[in-house]
């Protein structure tokens, strides 16, 4: 067996038949641990690296397990036929896969060996050299840009966005295919001005680039209760379709290929 198949890492979920996170039919492997603590995060169980317990459907569930790349690939490979027909493959999500860089690299390496397309959903909040190690094996980088204002970014995610924006500039040149994703969060970044500022930045680093506006949703709400953590965005509700259309038009004004959803 190749060495990279023996690399170990920590995941908390594998989801199949995803059709909205990268091209074709994809399997998403969720890695555990993240550097940010976004207040709207729909996978709060992903944030800590430690294995933890979560109450779910009346049962206590262990979140997180340590696995080898080979074990993950056994599961991912079950859907190879659907990747072949759709140009799909493996997407790493999280958490933040850059928090387990060797594991992430080995997973992507394996996926390319198996012949899949690869993608990561990532904040790019890591040293650029760490990210560069993944790029040879990466087809699509789905990168979050949540805000261009450092203070507001910090207030809602616990970190400012200096490193993220800097990395975005580099990735616009070096990544094979970069798609910027903006979670649209009421009270945080949902004004036309804020979306305009993000779009302006994206258009500068990547003229006519792709941008996805992802409307805020509350599907992760129960998980906060299950983890015994407070949910601090109780007071906001998902943006309306009309609102999203308005913001889409804003992004399009900057010449971007914009769409709602992934």
């Amino acid at each position: 067996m190749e060495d990279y198949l023996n690399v170990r890492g920590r995941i908390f979920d594998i989801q199949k038949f995803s059709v909205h996170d990268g091209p074709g039919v994809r399997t998403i492997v969720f890695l555990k641990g993240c550097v940010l603590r976004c207040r709207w995060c729909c996978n709060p169980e992903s944030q800590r690296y430690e294995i933890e317990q979560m109450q779910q459907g009346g049962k206590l569930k262990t979140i997180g397990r340590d696995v080898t790349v080979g074990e993950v690939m056994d599961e991912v490979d079950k859907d190879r036929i659907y990747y072949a027909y759709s140009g799909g493959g493996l997407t790493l999500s999280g958490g933040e896969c850059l928090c387990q860089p060797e594991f992430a690299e080995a997973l992507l390496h394996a996926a390319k060996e198996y012949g899949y397309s690869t993608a990561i959903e990532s904040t790019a909040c890591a040293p650029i050299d760490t990210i560069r190690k993944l790029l040879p094996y990466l087809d699509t980088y789905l990168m979050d840009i949540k805000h261009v204002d450092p203070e507001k970014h910090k207030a809602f995610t616990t970190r400012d966005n200096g490193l993220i924006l800097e990395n975005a500039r580099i990735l616009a040149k070096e990544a094979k295919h970069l798609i910027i994703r903006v979670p649209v969060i009421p009270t945080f970044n949902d004004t036309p001005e804020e979306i305009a500022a993000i779009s302006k930045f994206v258009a500068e680093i990547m003229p006519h680039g792709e941008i996805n506006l992802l409307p805020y949703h509350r599907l992760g709400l129960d998980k906060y209760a299950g983890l015994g953590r407070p949910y601090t965005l109780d007071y906001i509700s998902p943006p309306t379709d009309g609102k999203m259309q308005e913001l889409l038009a804003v992004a399009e004004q900057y010449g971007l290929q914009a769409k709602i959803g992934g």
Partner: protein
Amino acid sequence: MPDFYTAEVPKSPRIAKLVAHLFEKMPQIEADRAILLTESYRKTEGLPIATRRAEAFAHIVRNIPITIRPDELIVGSATKSPRSCQVFPEFSFTWLEDEFDTVATRSADPFEISEETKRTLHEVYKYWGGKTTSELALAYMSDGAKMAMKHNIFTPGNYFYNGVGHVTVDYGEVLAIGFEGIAEKAREALKNCHDGDADYATRKAFLDAVVLSMEAASEYAERYAVLALEMAKTETDPQRKMELALIANNCANVPRHGAKSFYEACQSFWFVQMLLQVESSGHSISPGRFDQYMYPYYKADLDAGKITREFAQELMDCIWVKFNDLNKVRDAASAEGFAGYSLFQNLIAGGQTAEGLDATNDLSFMSITATMHVLLPAPSFSVRVWNGTPHSFMIRAAELTRMGSGMPAYYNDEVIIPALVSRGLTMEDAREYNIIGCVEPQKSGKTEGWHDAAFFNMCRPVELVFTNGSEWGEQVGPKTGELSEFTTFEKFYDAYKAQMNYMIELLVNADNAIDLAHAERCPLPFESAMVEDCIGRGKPLQQGGAIYNFTGPQGFGIANMADALYAVKTLVYDQKKYTIQQFADALRNNYGQPFGPVQSEQMTLQIVKELDAHGRTPDEKTIADIYARVRDNEVPTSKKALYDQLRADIDELPKFGNDEFDVDLFARDVAYTYTRPLQNFKNPRGGIFHAGLYPVSANVPLGAQTGATPDGRLAGTPVADGVSPAAGRDVHGPTASCNSVARLDHGIASNGTLFNMKFHPSALKGRSGLEGFVSLIRGYFAQKGMHMQFNVVSRETLIDAQNNPDKYRSLVVRVAGYSALFTTLSRSLQDDIINRTEQGSM
């Protein structure tokens, strides 16, 4: 550039009017056919049966009332009222007489019947005692078969009480040469009937019957020509006046002669389709590859500038509506098994030519469009998929799926063609297959497939393993051993196989008895005239006139049996957590849960019988008390704890449908317990038996008659449908479910397999949703799955429809191999559809 037109063609305003008229009132039962049939039969006593059948058919079509409904462009109605039915006493009738007073109010498929019709039918029925196919079939059956049927191991009810149907005739030949051309073929064949031939008598009688049937059917169409002209005279709207004149022209020419235009071809097709359903009460008379045999007429008219795409589409839409004008009343129990007023007229688009080239054309796309325009349960619309199917066709089909009516069903050429070749079809014939009824493949115009020969409940034999073959005090199956003798799993599994083998043989016995009864009492010369090689052989389909002959009874409950046997193997023999006796006790006591009505009644009846036998006949109050106690089934606390623990442990075991290799291979083996023994038997028409794995909707009523099973399923609840995983048991998404189901051997089930999936509408959203969905189908098919169908409707919508049926009168859902109006289904079948696992996507 593809050489077909893929854009959508707009819908004519006429279509909504036709649909509204069709659904104006409740379906009626009409007596005209029964009266005419009986008049003729009284006059032909003592003549050859082929002659009697043809004379009766001719008498019916020459005299039955005809009507042209408002705004119709394609005419031909079997009943005065829309969506109504005639009755067919030659097959069976006592059930209808018994149900005269309940047929209008029953939950599944109610029909109105007037007092006048009841009186008339009552008179007519006096003639038929002792003369039906069902009575003769019963007389031919073995005692064992009758015992197994009484205990609901299987039910051959479909052909036992009705005509066979389940055929696709050679429509193309009628379009080309007309009924006159076919009569001419029969007359030619008659010239070769020599007085000294051993089969002179039957051959001559049959060929004469063909000639008479063709003549009478042509006259039937000409009656419409006369009617249309009469109506045109008094019609004040100039547009309609012109339409009626066109109708008159068409009916004067077709189907007697070959069609000269696409419009005539449409009208000719429709007369064939509806007259087949006047001759016999068989359902699943399937139009098959409409896009193929209609195409030359469309293409010629289009090239000559004689037709617009819009008008061609309107004609197709009219036919699509017309399919819903035909109807059929079944006995109450069968109505549960075929719920939704369905006639299973399966129409299929796409696929390959006889030479193996892609067959997609304009009409393939327009068939999808017609289904979108009409959005009614009929026709059962299907598409064929092969490796070379154009992506644009798949996407358009997926757009139809997304509309939520459960259509189209998708069929995999790459499995079905080799499966049919393995059953003796030529490669060319196999490539031209179409689907009959729900999911059954055959070659049109050459096959008497007896596709829907019975339902076999694979769960019932395992119940008999636990009781050494006895039930309700009767020895139903063989004695396969006391529980204590099952010291290894292999011994237990062998006992199951022994029960299966025994019951399969009885199923064959019952089917063959019914087959012979149809051959003797109800040969069908009109239908037979359009299937090769009846005229050449000089005998009807029912006596072996077809090139290909099969009998295809359906097994269902594979998922339950796979999970059940896996549970017994793991918990009793591998882990030794429970004894087989504990398992048996838990099943007998329904895991300590209340019993359903069927089991409660059965057990109460047994207790009352016992008391009777001891001279202590209970009064009504005592019986009610016994019933209540049996139903509530309160068990001691200690036992209850054990049962609960057992069910919890079963729950934790891996289940079929989750992409677990070992469990799936186990399921594959379990399916063989039905499919393999069956193929060793022969039918009286010289063909073989081959299995289907699909339930129509019988998994619900037959589940109600099934006790608790070792997969944790409670007594009386539905059994898994087709090859689908048990409801709610497949929890790892659609690809896992597909991978598991594809691991079964679909090729051996050459009478068809049925895989139901349910999607939330959000899963097919946007282009990426459609693309993902198409890849799912392609992936399942690449792994040798045979068929897939989908309900795309949210659970919330279905529940809302249950509670507010008036809001959802037009909600069409997929039941089994067909779609039906949701609100017309019985509550239990509605629940079954709601409870199917709902697949989403991320």
